[in-house]
């Protein structure tokens, strides 16, 4: 594979006991692009996400991540927190997982844990308030402020995250993921539960993340207005396998995709069966 792919998924397989959630899935995501992963409920989208972000260890296959700088990582061999720490893959969750009892600002500070941990000399320098630590902390607060401003939450920086309205929580979670300075940002249904206006705002945010920060985005989404408007590349899953792959327009007109989403007429099934000679 050439170097312009940030993520190459090769024959990814995920089994849960006898159930094959993802069976031999292959796709690629390009640098600086927004790649959407769509499919009906139960198609295995979130399972793919959990494999990429280290929450599941794949039963088989390869997940190769290439940074813009050229460093490559085999994600199936890294696990857990290292995927975010070393391979720089950040994610959000389908059901928002903020730290509800911490303020919005604190949420973004926690996201910068690894950088701050180094700056605080593994806590020991920080304990005595060494100037270099203070400077690093100020930089972290500035970064958090930048992202709070970007998602329009700067006025609510000191409010508990659990107190924010639903749409704000969604955006705060994206800001938190961006504070880890990811190379690949994985968003699990970022538009779920958003109204039309908020959804449009999300589109704008994601497009600007791509344009200004060069962050590649991989997203799962049901909201077709989001998928069709912002994604450069769409991959359609059904029953754990890929059924279509291409530009949003091409995918939208693909009969297999329409069939997977809407089902097919009975006479069409009969026609196919006749063709197969049954």
């Amino acid at each position: 594979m050439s170097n312009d792919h940030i993520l190459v998924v090769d024959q990814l397989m995920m089994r849960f006991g006898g159930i094959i959630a993802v069976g031999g899935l292959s796709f690629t995501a390009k640098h600086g692009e927004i790649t959407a992963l769509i499919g009906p409920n139960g198609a295995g989208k979130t399972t793919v996400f959990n494999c990429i972000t280290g929450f599941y260890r794949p039963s088989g296959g390869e997940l190769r991540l290439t940074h813009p700088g050229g460093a490559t990582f085999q994600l199936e061999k890294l696990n857990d927190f290292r995927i975010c720490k070393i391979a720089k893959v950040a994610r959000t969750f389908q059901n928002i997982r903020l730290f509800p009892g911490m303020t919005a600002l604190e949420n973004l500070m926690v996201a910068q844990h690894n950088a701050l941990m180094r700056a605080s000399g593994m806590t020991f320098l920080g304990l005595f308030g060494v100037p270099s630590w203070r400077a690093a902390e100020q930089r972290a607060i500035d970064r958090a402020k930048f992202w709070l401003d970007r998602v329009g939450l700067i006025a609510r920086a000191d409010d508990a995250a659990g107190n924010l309205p639903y749409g704000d929580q969604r955006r705060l979670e994206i800001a938190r993921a961006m504070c880890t300075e990811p190379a690949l940002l994985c968003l699990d249904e970022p538009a779920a539960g958003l109204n039309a206006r908020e959804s449009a705002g999300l589109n704008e945010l994601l497009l600007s993340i791509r344009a200004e920060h060069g962050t590649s985005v991989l997203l799962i989404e049901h909201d077709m207005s989001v998928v069709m408007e912002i994604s450069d590349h769409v991959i359609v899953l059904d029953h754990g396998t890929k059924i279509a792959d291409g530009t949003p327009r091409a995918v939208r007109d693909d009969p297999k995709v329409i069939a997977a989403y809407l089902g097919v007429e009975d006479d069409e099934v009969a026609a196919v069966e006749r063709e197969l000679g049954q």
Partner: protein
Amino acid sequence: MVSPVPAAVASAANATGVAKAGIAFILKKSLISALVALVLFSLMIGVRTDVGTAGQLVYWTRFGELAAIVGAVFVGSILVELLRGWFGPREGVQLPQGVQRGLSWAGRLIGPAALVFALLLPVIFYDQRYILDLAILVLTYIMLGWGLNVVVGLAGLLDLGYVAFYAVGAYSYALLATNFGLSFWICLPLAGILAAFWGILLGFPVLRLRGDYLAIVTLAFGEIIRLVLLNWQDLTGGPNGISGIPRPTLFGIPLSSGEDGLAALLGIEFSPTHRIVFLFYLILALALITNWVTIRLRRLPIGRAWEAMREDEVACRALGINITTTKLTAFATGAMFGGFAGAFFATRQGFISPESFTFHESALVLAIVVLGGMGSQLGVAIAAVTLIGGFELFRGLDQYRMLVFGMAMVLLMIWRPRGLVGHRAPTVFLEHNRAIAADMVKEGRG
């Protein structure tokens, strides 16, 4: 005896509007409680057996007592429900702005006022040995509470075996001092390090455990340490404990009546109170160091990671936080403070035995943390004063002490379910340092 109760309930409901719990609900709940009491006590109290004159089994019934107990349970549960309605957390009750501002001012002053009082305490009560001893005891529990607060309050890991680290600290100092003649000031950090080491050892097997399972394993760990201390006769002296533990010195100057003692050096008359006062300031300093370190740690990435782990462990992993080291550092830090407190306990008592490190101590320290409000430094301090002071206050009640005490705790938890100081102060803020309401903050599941 039942007939006046519904009338009382009705009037109370009318007067205060017990909206959440209707009369029918209260009566139903109380009836169920009474029924359970009837089943339980019919054998325990209703039938009394004894050995007759010829050695045969005789029994007789006590239905009167049984009825009294069941009635008491019925009335008691009605009362508890009513109290819950009156004092329980109510929505929509807003204090006037002025009162709120006054309260927040008072809240901010409690800490410094308590510190000044603590610093002056030996001066005020110089002649009252009993009060000084009690203050030392209270401060020891404040320190233990602050130590456990790191594990339970910040990291959200329920630890029922905290006394193990207290024991490790105490025995470390006792053994190092009696066997190798090391001074208190060298042994103190060693005791802390050893306790932290044991904290990490406990941490490893419980890394994957949560909630109840974590609690049970830590409970077992506490018992294992106690049983080892009890049975390893050669090293620990078994049930006889270790005696003749050296008293602390003021940087090498003993606080004794001898020629080289502090009193002789200063040219003042020797008094045994000097040592008590010295011990008081020693534990005060240790507790304040614990407090200072904990407050600093909360504002460092490690402390934020602890709290984030309490809030949502999965999200932490997604942000690249190593849960293993975060949990282990929480256990180690908490254990280290427990170890310091243990070393102090050993030097103060001069004698230690496994009897001082029973589960009861763990439960007491945990009660202090829970009652104080998990994660709150000030709350833990107030709770320690209340609990340990309360034990002493109710001493006159003899056998009813625990009963009164237990009831006081139940009432307090009904009134403030999240502890005395339930809200959480943010560790960093841009403009407004607003406290976060208790219902937002997670308790952690381990």
